[in-house]
């Protein structure tokens, strides 16, 4: 299971006892309430996985680690593509409108961020001003023209949509890959770096 856990996966099974003693009260509360944690892109000990705990407020994000043995349940972003929620919010409308086009785009896609959290847990995390965060599994290179076409499609949605391309070497923002910058920001567990080709192994 270790190798298959990826950034943006949601994990259940963390208990307050696993938190560091200096964890803020809201973190302990979130975990005690049975909320999932989200896998972060960061290095950790071999028997642990870097995770983040969400609070109700935007600045309430707490980075910690979870023992892999403690994982009771896991939901990946791509498991959430066809989960429906009945809420009258721009992010929900955007997701409903984009779903058929994403299903037809030829890549595996998924829902992350607050939408993914709400779809997976049923805990309300989206609000009127929420963006929609999506991921796209891109094991093969996507050319920049294709990226521009995708951005055009996402820009027609009911809210701001941020899509991250997950390459074998990390994640890059679709919007940046579609843009004019020669070098783009690639994030992986080790570091963030500016690269010319996000599908090429760094030297």
């Amino acid at each position, binding site marked *: 299971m270790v190798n298959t856990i990826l950034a943006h996966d949601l994990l259940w099974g963390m208990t307050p006892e696993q938190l560091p003693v200096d964890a803020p009260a809201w973190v302990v509360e979130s975990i005690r309430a049975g909320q999932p944690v989200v896998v972060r892109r960061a290095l950790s000990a071999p028997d642990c996985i870097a995770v983040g705990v969400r609070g109700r407020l*935007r600045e309430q994000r707490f980075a910690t680690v979870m023992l892999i043995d403690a994982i009771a349940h896991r939901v990946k972003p791509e498991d959430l593509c066809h989960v429906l929620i009945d809420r009258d919010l721009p992010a929900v409308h955007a997701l409903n409108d984009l779903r058929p086009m994403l299903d037809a785009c030829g890549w595996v896609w998924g829902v992350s961020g607050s939408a993914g959290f709400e779809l997976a847990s049923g805990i309300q995390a989206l609000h009127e001003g929420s*963006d929609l965060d999506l991921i796209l599994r891109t094991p093969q290179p996507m050319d920049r023209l294709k990226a521009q076409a995708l951005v055009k499609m996402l820009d027609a949605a009911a809210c701001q949509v*941020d899509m991250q391309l997950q390459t074998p070497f990390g994640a890059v*923002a679709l919007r940046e890959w579609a843009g004019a910058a020669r070098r783009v*920001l690639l994030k992986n567990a080790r570091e*963030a770096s*500016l690269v010319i080709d996000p599908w090429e192994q760094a030297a």
Partner: protein
Amino acid sequence: METLSFEFPAGQPPTGRALVGCVGSGDLEVLIEPGQAGKLTIKVQTSVNGAEQRWQHLFERIFQEQMPPALKIDIHDFGATPGVVRLRLEQGFEEIGHD
């Protein structure tokens, strides 16, 4: 949402301008323009409240290495890590240098 302002001593203004970065969680957009001679001004609009000290320290570390040119920097931050902020600023400085 919070707007922060910073000011540092600087050299002469460059001629070019640059826009780097990206709107999206964990990233930031940086607009760099020529400033008033001797002054580097930075405006940060951030989605993360209560981080003024962290920005101040980060900028101090970046600009203490050598006297920066006179710039007017506009940052829209979406919860980027200090590492990402540093990379984006370097990318922006590089682009200005190419003009």
